[in-house]
């Protein structure tokens, strides 16, 4: 086989596998939109489920998922970012920081159902939150932490060391250096981590299964200690527990879930693009 043939074959293989990555994504979106779009209506999006969830809307589940995502991100982003700043900007390599890094790695490898069981044990029973938004959001936030921390650390480490040097040489304290010279340049990278975790918090079923999700609960939560319906669990329930339900209900729910994640991410992506335009090096 000549070098030229090898080149052609290699190129074809590369192009083919790239195509294989794009196809499922396109297919999924196409399928969801084609089957789900007809089901979307004002009543579906803003109404309560009726008739054993075979009719009506999914508004309580939308609100529930939204609360969980916002709750999880509100807890995990500050803790994760501060931890990453400590690890990357303040601490030296010590037994303690090695332990912390090991813990983060381990958290990243824990299956999501284990988070669910852990959350049930700690938040639902031990701390007595019951099945509630509080317990669910906290469970999701722990699941989010490793990615937020890792993304933030990588973002901080990609900020050129000269920025820190200049800032310190101008007489800034270490905290001022982090706050004004390093962190602003790391925010786009941090947002990438946040975007990933918004999708995970919105989409995971296992961690909320035992901690918050209600099978059927019309009406909206009154406090963070109320259980709620959530989109992924609702999708799971109507697909497995409710016989004789129209496919439109299922695809509509799935499309709404994807849409919710997408709309939260679009905000973050625009914010990131805006911040990147302002700072380039």
């Amino acid at each position: 086989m000549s070098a030229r043939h090898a080149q052609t074959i290699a190129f074809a293989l590369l192009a083919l596998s790239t195509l294989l990555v794009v196809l499922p994504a396109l297919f999924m979106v196409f399928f969801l939109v084609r089957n789900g779009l007809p089901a979307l209506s004002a009543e579906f999006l803003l109404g309560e489920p009726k008739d054993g969830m075979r009719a009506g809307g999914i508004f309580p589940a939308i609100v529930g998922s939204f609360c969980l995502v916002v709750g999880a991100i509100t807890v995990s982003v500050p803790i994760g970012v501060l931890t990453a700043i400590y690890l990357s900007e303040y601490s030296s390599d010590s037994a303690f920081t090695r332990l912390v890094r090991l813990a983060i790695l381990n958290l990243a490898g824990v299956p999501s159902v284990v988070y669910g069981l852990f959350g049930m044990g700690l938040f639902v029973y031990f701390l007595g939150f019951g099945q509630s938004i509080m317990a669910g959001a906290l469970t999701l936030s722990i699941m989010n932490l490793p990615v937020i921390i890792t993304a933030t650390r990588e973002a901080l480490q990609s900020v050129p060391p000269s920025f820190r040097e200049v800032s310190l040489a101008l007489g800034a304290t270490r905290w001022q250096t982090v706050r004004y010279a390093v962190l602003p340049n790391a925010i786009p990278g941090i947002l990438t981590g946040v975007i990933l975790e918004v999708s995970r918090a919105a989409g995971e079923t296992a961690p909320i299964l035992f901690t918050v999700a209600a099978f059927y609960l019309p009406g909206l939560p009154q406090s963070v200690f109320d259980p709620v319906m959530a989109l992924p669990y609702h999708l799971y329930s109507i697909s497995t527990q409710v016989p004789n339900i129209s496919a439109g209900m299922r695809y509509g729910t799935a499309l709404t879930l994807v849409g919710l994640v997408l709309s939260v991410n679009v905000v973050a992506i625009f914010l990131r693009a805006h911040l990147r335009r302002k700072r380039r090096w």
Partner: protein
Amino acid sequence: MNEGNAGKPPGAMAGPPRRTVTALEAAERVSGPTPLAEAPETIVEVRNFNLYYGAFQALKNINVKIVRRAITAIIGPSGCGKSTLLRSVNRMNDLVPGVKTAGQILVDGEDIHGLGAEPVALRKKVGMVFQRPNPFPLSVFENMAFGPRIHGTFRKSEIHEAVERGLRAVLLWDELKDRLKASALSLSLEQQQRLCIARLLPVKPELLLMDEPCSALDPLATERVEELMQEMKENYSIVVVTHNMQQASRVSDHTGFMLLGELVEFGETREIFTHPHDHRTEDYITGRFG
């Protein structure tokens, strides 16, 4: 005292700071290891200073006095410790893990490693210009405002004034006054390096440490930055590290030659370049090595 007219450093008109003269200093004043015509005021005094990176000794028993409002050049081959010495003066070496020092560095008569000595206060007094121009990826204005802001100036009018005064001092104001909002990274390298020098000025330093400030610049830009240095020594003391001997001989009043962590020779630039006392200095400046 800090009314800040024409960017004069604080203490410019206050006369020499009063401090007790030690026996050692008195002896030195009589015999005088540095044969200067008169004894001008010293801004930095390095006494028996040693610095170790782990087991490696980078600076060996350095003794030198840097004269106020003059340009002092430190020359020597790569790795001789000249940048390390420079970075010791504003304690930037503190950031390198495993650094140990012995001996003293006095800035304005105060031991910078002494009890209660704050690197933050020291670095306000001692500004640094780096080898590569390193503006923040922000606008010209934001770069200039960084110093005043971290030191607690937030009034818009004050910041604007500081920005203008700083840019005027490095002769950038006329070029950039209409482009203050442009990204600092869109400037030419020379403008960037000038901006980096200007960025120090609102903090009101007395001493400027320049670590090969022209090595990223073309000859024409280098010449202009050298002119700027000459102009700035009216108000500031400057220590410049350079591997460019012509630069040292052109701009500096005093020159120190370093080799393998030792300060081999220090004196008036004219003297060093015409009648070096040490054969190693002579070998280096005549281009036999380095």
